[in-house]
């Protein structure tokens, strides 16, 4: 949370997160570039430039795979949530590794030619109607452009400027980009492999990303929305202090009903920051705290504590036949609501 835009709001957790990323990347490249060549039983060595483009390319692919696995993993097991926390840095680092891959490709396969490297990249293979021989480079280029756009717009300034809904949709481009990367690898590097290891790694990676997303959708599916203005949430006695129950309202909207002491109140489940699931958060220091990036909101009016300015919609509640019910018509963001109090016989 911030009242002004600064490039990176560093904190010790981010330092540790980035350090782990860099160690992981450096070790991968060191093993690939320095250790592995000595273990190859080839009559002639692979060109160092080609080895480098393979090292950086495969590293970027694996990093992107991990990035895409973290989201569904955190849905399936909340302990993974801290790994989602600083995922933007992971994405930016992946872009840097992927750009290095492109630089080695341009400086080797597309160098030494009367045709300029970028022109050669776009013109040397235009067999778009073939499967074998398809210009797989274009798939990689598409993914790189998406990664670039995502990295450039990753800052909260763009989130605010574009609005969370548009920003989120823009960043969903990562899925077609990942599919393009899999195609890039499958139609390019894998076609020349005589050993199945990289093919197996690619297949397992793609299945992991697809399988985890599928599992998250299936296992994390909310109850269907009820009809009418008032939606039944849960039995009065089932609310746990400091936590929420999430209710589906239809059209993708969800609300989070929190208990704070003896009071119940409801706010939107979507954090104003990145649409994080507020209902999976906790009440800390009297504020609903988003599990993704720690953005906080007062429960009774949906506003961030001053000097912060974020606001989320609030909802009316009532008790009916021992059930807590929520009015599906949202109040404008930041609208104060009266909480309902739990009956005395509820612990």
């Amino acid at each position: 949370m911030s009242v002004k835009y600064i490039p990176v709001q560093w904190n010790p957790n981010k330092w540790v997160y980035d350090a782990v990323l860099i160690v992981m990347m450096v070790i991968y490249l060191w093993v690939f570039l320095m250790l592995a060549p000595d273990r190859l039983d080839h009559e002639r060595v692979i060109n160092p430039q080609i080895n480098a483009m393979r090292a950086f390319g495969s590293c970027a692919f694996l990093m992107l795979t991990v990035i895409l696995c973290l989201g569904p993993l955190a849905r399936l097991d909340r302990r993974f949530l801290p790994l989602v926390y600083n995922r933007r840095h992971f994405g930016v680092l992946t872009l840097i590794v992927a750009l290095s891959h492109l630089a080695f490709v341009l400086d080797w396969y597309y160098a030494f030619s009367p045709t300029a490297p970028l022109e050669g990249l776009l013109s040397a293979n235009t067999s778009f109607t073939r499967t074998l021989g398809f210009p797989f480079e274009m798939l990689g280029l598409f993914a790189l452009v998406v990664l670039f756009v995502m990295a450039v717009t990753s800052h909260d300034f763009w989130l605010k400027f574009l609005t969370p809904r548009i920003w989120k949709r823009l960043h969903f481009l990562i899925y077609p980009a990942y599919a393009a990367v899999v195609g890039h690898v499958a139609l390019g590097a894998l076609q020349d492999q005589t050993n199945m290891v990289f093919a197996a790694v690619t297949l397992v990676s793609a299945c992991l990303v697809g399988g985890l997303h599928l599992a998250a959708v299936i296992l994390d599916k909310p109850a269907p929305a009820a009809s009418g203005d008032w939606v039944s949430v849960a039995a009065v006695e089932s609310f746990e202090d400091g936590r929420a129950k999430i209710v589906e309202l239809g059209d993708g909207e969800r609300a989070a009903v929190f208990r704070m002491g003896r009071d119940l109140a409801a706010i939107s489940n979507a954090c104003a920051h990145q649409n994080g699931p507020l209902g999976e958060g906790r009440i800390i220091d009297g504020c609903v705290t988003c599990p993704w990036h720690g953005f906080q909101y007062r429960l009774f009016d949906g506003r961030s504590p001053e000097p912060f300015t974020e606001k989320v919609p609030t909802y009316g509640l009532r008790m009916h036949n021992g059930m807590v019910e929520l009015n599906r018509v949202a109040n404008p963001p930041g609208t104060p609501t009266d909480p309902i109090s739990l009956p005395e016989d509820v612990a």
Partner: protein
Amino acid sequence: MSEKSTPFFIGFLPVPDGLRGFLMVACAGLVIAFTALAYMIGTTQADPGPAQFRFDLGAQTLTGTMTALPYPVLHVTNGTETVAAGRSILLSANGKNGVQSRIEDGAVVTASGPLLQRGTLDMMQVRGGRRGIKAEPDVTAIEVVSESLGRWQMAGEICDGKCLTGAMRPGRGIAHRACANLCISGGVPPVFVSAQPVEGEEFFLVGDSDGNPIGPDLTEFTALYIQVEGEVRKLGDMHMFLMDVDTIKVLP
């Protein structure tokens, strides 16, 4: 771990004790997995083949008669220990460039530069200017015999002769397709690598069915495993394969 007992992480606060161990294991697992994957992928790369620049032999200086079509070939009359008289050798310039603009068909020249070698296939990367190709008007040209070895159907791959002979390792395959097309369009002689030797030869200089340089209709099939028919000819000591583009089939 149940959701109730999962400690709640907030980015700007210290990591809760209950999560610290899990996160350390997860991070260590990622680093170990990346290390193992780098080793597995890095050590299982395919052999790029026995091709290389022969800088160790020093620059070669060869005199002979040029033929220009389909691509420049020097038929050596005065050679070296490595490239003896009677051999025919492919020529290219620096980078992805041919020497078409620097030679005349039937002329006698002295060519100089480093060799690239892959098996029985040699190519010279001639140096720039007159140090690379010098006309020898006082030396009589030989008659270069061109002999048909009949029509053949072959399976194999069209490569650019320079990367194939070691300018890049590996210098063939689909990942290298765009590079090969740039080389061929720049004038580097293309070479067909046959899956089975024909007349004892694995490498064939490629031309179209009229014996001319290949065009986009043939470069469309560069780096693919294809079956193709055409005439095999021997030009001096160089085997050529003049392809009929209409007979090309891409093989799986």
